[in-house]
């Protein structure tokens, strides 16, 4: 690791007026060919390049990004991290990710600001309570730390929450202390920094037009900067994955929908844990800069405009103002949307396909950010070994034929 960052490096550079910090990553022109091309320069894509280089010794890699690094969903989510999913396969995958999060800052020597302040899923009716009690018990048997908290404990954790005097009172919550939030840009930049150091080419503003195949074997990609040859192509382009898959004749069961989020203006600390409420579609945490980061539900129709309908913002703010009345006196600073690729069973696809050398990591829907390191790690294994890792074995394409779905709709009414 050449570039070392610490308080010492900050002091050293202060003396030279911060003028000779080194470039974190180069933006070269693409070479003629690579062993592996990763399409999509978000957290998952850059992470895959990092683990391919670090754990599988494959360095002749190009990460090709249509826009700018981390410009897709990596830069548009509500940064929530948790692993309290219902089914074993999901719990193992997401917890593999949380474990990697826990020392990602050290590993990349780039501060992810991973703050394990706990994530709370509120129960607003008897059905919610039953569903959460089941998930807590399943999580416990899978070694996760989810526990039931009653209204009194909730009020201690979040004093500003209005638990009784609202249309659907808060009856309790499932709380995972190891859950939390992290700085979303830092993931993309940290992985870019370190994979570039290991020789990975990071190519921005280079859009993949289509994937070239020849009798069921991948040849390379046609891009806005010409054709680039590759033995293996790994597509991890979230909302655009099915558009690119189509060019290789592969059909994916994805629907791309806008998912919106918003931030408030910055204020002093007022809420120190992450609170999610599936029943009323409102998710809130407060960033270290003081802004409330609030997540909404998905829009009801397919769209690639990265901007959803205003009615969805209204739905979310109605719920937030009811749950936290004092937020009524605050103001929304910015609203935006990403494009999330949703699977019929609200679980991802990390899988090979019928075209040799072509791999897909997509379908994360509304819950992709939390899985960034875990997904990248097992996807690197799948690409390197041409065999899925044990953890992502179940997340294959065949499940939509044999019916072995991993239905996380319960958890993912909108999983954030």
């Amino acid at each position: 690791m050449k570039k070392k960052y610490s308080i010492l490096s900050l002091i050293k550079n202060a003396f030279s007026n911060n003028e000779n910090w080194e470039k974190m990553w180069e933006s070269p022109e693409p070479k003629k060919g690579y062993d592996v091309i990763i399409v999509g320069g978000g957290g998952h894509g850059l992470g895959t390049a990092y683990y391919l280089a670090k754990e599988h010794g494959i360095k002749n890699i190009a990460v090709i990004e249509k826009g700018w690094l981390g410009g897709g969903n990596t830069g548009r989510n509500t940064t929530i991290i948790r692993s309290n999913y219902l089914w074993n396969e999901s719990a193992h995958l997401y917890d593999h990710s949380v474990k990697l999060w826990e020392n990602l800052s050290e590993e990349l020597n780039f501060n992810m600001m991973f703050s394990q302040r706990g994530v709370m899923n509120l129960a607003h009716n008897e059905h919610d309570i039953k569903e959460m009690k089941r998930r807590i018990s399943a999580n416990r048997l899978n070694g996760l730390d989810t526990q039931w908290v009653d209204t009194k404990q909730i009020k201690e954790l979040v004093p500003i929450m209005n638990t009784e005097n609202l249309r659907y009172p808060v009856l309790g919550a499932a709380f995972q202390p190891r859950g939390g939030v992290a700085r979303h840009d830092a993931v993309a930049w940290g992985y870019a920094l370190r994979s570039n150091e290991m020789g990975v080419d990071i190519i921005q503003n280079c859009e993949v037009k289509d994937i070239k195949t020849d009798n069921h074997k991948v040849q390379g990609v046609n891009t806005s900067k010409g054709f680039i040859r590759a033995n293996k192509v790994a597509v991890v382009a979230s909302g655009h994955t099915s558009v690119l898959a189509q060019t290789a004749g592969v059909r994916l069961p994805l629907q791309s929908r806008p998912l919106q989020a918003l931030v408030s203006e910055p204020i002093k600390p007022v809420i120190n844990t992450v609170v999610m409420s599936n029943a009323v579609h409102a998710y809130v945490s407060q960033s270290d800069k003081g802004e409330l980061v609030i997540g909404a539900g998905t829009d009801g129709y397919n769209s690639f405009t990265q901007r959803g309908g205003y009615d969805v913002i209204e739905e979310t703010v109605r719920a937030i103002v009811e749950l936290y009345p004092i937020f009524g006196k605050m103001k929304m600073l910015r609203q935006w949307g990403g494009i999330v690729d949703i699977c019929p069973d609200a679980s991802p696809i990390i899988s090979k396909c019928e075209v040799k050398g072509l791999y897909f990591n997509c379908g994360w829907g509304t819950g992709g950010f939390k899985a960034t390191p875990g997904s990248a790690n097992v996807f690197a294994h799948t690409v390197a070994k041409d065999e899925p890792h044990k953890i992502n074995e179940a997340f294959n394409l065949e499940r939509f034929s044999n019916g072995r779905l991993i239905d996380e709709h319960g958890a993912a009414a909108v999983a954030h």
Partner: protein
Amino acid sequence: MPALRNKDCNYISNKEIKITFDGKSYSAYEGDTIASALLRNNIRLIGRSFKYHRPRGIYTCGIEEPNALVQILNEHNEPNTRATVKKAYDGINISSQNRWPSLSFDIGSINNILSPIFSAGFYYKTFMGPKGFWKKIYEPLIRRTAGLGKPPKNFRSKSIHQNHNVDILIVGGGLSGLIAAKKLIDTDNEVLLVEQDSFLGGILKNSNKVKQIDGKNVFEWVKETEKLILKSKNIKILKNTLVTTYNFTNHLIALEDKYSGKKIDVSKSELTLHKIRTTHTILANGHIERFISFRNNDLPGVMLASSFEKYIERYGVTPDEKPVIFTNNSSTVSLVKSLINLDCKPSAYIDARKEEDIEDETKEYLSKNNILFYPESEVEGCEGNKKVEKVYIRNSNNKISSINATMLCPSGGFNPDIHLFTQSKGLVKWDDKIISFKPDTAFQNTITLGSVSGNYEFKNLCNEINKKLSFLKVGDLNLEIETNIRDNLSIKELWETKTNKKSKWSKSFIDLHNDVTTKDLKQAINEGYDRIEHLKRYTTNSMGTDQGKISSINSLGIVSKILNKKIAEVGTTTYRPPYAPLSFAAIAGRSTYEYYDPERKTPIHNWHIKNNAIFEDVGQWKRPWYFKKNETETMHQAVQRESKQTRQSAGILDGSTLGKIEIKGKDALEFMNLMYTNAFTKMKPMTSRYALMLGEDGMIMDDGIICKINDKHFLATTTSGGAPKVFAHMEEFLQTEWPHLQVYLNSITEQFTTFNISGPKAREIVSKVFSDIDFSNEKFPFMTFKTFNYKNTQARIMRASFTGELGYEIYISPQHALELWELIFKYGKDFDLVPYGTETMHLLRAEKGYVVIGQETDGTVTPIDINFNWMIGKKKKDFIGKRSLTRSDTAREDRKRLVGIVPLDKSQFIEEGQHIVECENLPSKIKTPIEYLGHISSSYHSPNLNHCISMAMIKSGNKLIGKKLFVSTPKGTKNIPVEIVSPVFIDPENKRLTS
């Protein structure tokens, strides 16, 4: 002492008001903003900057303000309020923000001393210290210094929404907006004119740039035009209303402050959110002056030139008698004229343009009033202790001199306010004449007029408007506009001035709100963040509450210089709605708190309340959960009582919330066979049957009872939660897949109130109530129904029950519901009839092994999994979901199956949601995952069997009957030994049902 004021300002009344700022009281005038009130009392220091806690003053006179954010203590501690917009009123109590202990002495300014270390993105490069330091030390410290205002206090809003549907929306009541409105008077277009200030006029009232219109002074012209508009039949005006969001298909959001300049009456709605649907949108929202980066350009006392002029013209207050003016364009001469009119004089006029480019009339005016004039010069920087004291000027031959001054007014040129235009998804283009972006191709019906479209020339304003509005065919309007300044703007590109001061602590700011210096931009580009979106995120440039209104174009200029690219190539970051921070209370409107979601009540809801029912939310319905016999009875006791009494004598449940659908038509039978798993063909008329509905994936979606009146007329019930979904599901398949089927559907959920009475004595009670119906087993067998006339209304009784007892479901018109319910109780008293709620219903059906959709089924359960194989019409060619049942995984042998579970030690209780395992104990700290066979879906203490009964879904459960296993407990490590049994605990032969 009375506050300073200019003589003839038409927009400020001379009624004095008292305001309090940081504990001290000041006097001001009605119509003042907080900023103009403070400037009247010569207050320059108003806040501390976000990151370095540097002293900050009032920088502008409007929505673009980056510094003057204050807290309104008497309005629930509202944080981050723009002092330059919020109107003051008598008794307003304001406090500054982000400083401790006080504004003048702030501990936070230690950040300024450490600022060389706090370079761009420093927090990514440190705070990674030893394990746990981030959670315990670094993060809490950062969070405490972050944020600006303190959180609000106990607040409940009453803001409301107001929807509008208009033909033309005019955004901005300035000169261009008024001309457009005047053209549209009494045409057949419904027009809405929206203005953010409390007065119309825009530049006419905010500056000295326009002298006369058609010979009248500007104030008179605006008053006259306003009167004409108000008299018109087709134009409405909204003042104090700021348009914040431009959505798709011309749908705009505007926020009206109803209490602008008044004390808020808490019983009324203080904010109204206007939601405007329009055919055409005319953006006439003007321009915003941008600043210039120079050394210490953030010192209190630096204020933009046109803002200074606006305080003079609009608010009648002169912030300073002899400011230094520093400009790169021809517009600032009107400020000089305003000062001269007040017998004040700028202490220096610094113009960056070459001498020959500066207009002669400006040079003559300056020399006539012998004002110190520095052509082809620029301000190198300024210095002072918490306010401007010295200004350093670099003249045309590069020599630096300094003069004393207390205020410095820069003007870096004007940006068309394209925020709303880009929100409408239109494209903008760089214009080298005005050195800024201006609107180019609109994506929706958007027309931009005046300075927002990059046209700063008053002379051809009218023909621009006539041309652009010609498609409305409303005739031309021409005005004689006389100005105080040269008509077309001449400007020299200037983003940042040179400084040779190499000190680490001298800062030239590019974003005042988030403390981003021009050095940070250069450093970010060195580190590889050269894409404009990366730059914004790495340095947080223009991400503050002002969204960089006065500085974001400057940052593009500086970046394009560093990368030596054209600014159009650098591009802009995405303008994200809202235009200015938008109140959450206004967005929520009145549909929050108790009105968050509609509440549905059954026709006999009041009876339940009178009989101390405790309610449960089921979808939007309020359903009785259980009935408290007396004050002290707990839920458990009530449910045990209700369950026992129903099995021993009789119980009655209000089932009105269940969905009811009427299906009629020639092909009704074929339709029902396709929609449900059951075969209805051989079903006899006037009988009923329990049925399952699957999704196409073969998983159970809903259940209900189907009554067949005849092959062409069915009545179906659904679960309460599933009612809308099932009705929509039926309509979808009928219209999109099988339009050839002649079938009609009507939802009749609300047309019948439903009472479910069951128990051994049920027959006696109903025979008394409906004396003319024969309830004998022969005449009224199980799963049949009768329709009859009850007091001239259609009524129906079906013999079925969800409790496993002898039971009847009575469907009665809502008109006679209460009367019948009370009649049943009159007769029921001698048979010990008890009203019961949903909890008892869940317990009784569990005793019978009946499933509940959403509890035993979770979207991954097929009919076979819950032993309903017999309900699948094998001979049926097709029904929704049939094919999915034979997929390899769905037909797999070891799928989870429904079983019953009883604890070996009858006194133990099994919790719902727990899991069935094979090991006796669980390790206290589970590291490696533990295999489980399935989960407990339902668990109750049965008063009728005197032990806990549970239902569970376990892998190959049907093969494990009789096996001994264990069930986990929520907290403990000792599992409960249990036995797997059949899920039907009471009356497996259904004798009670069919006797």
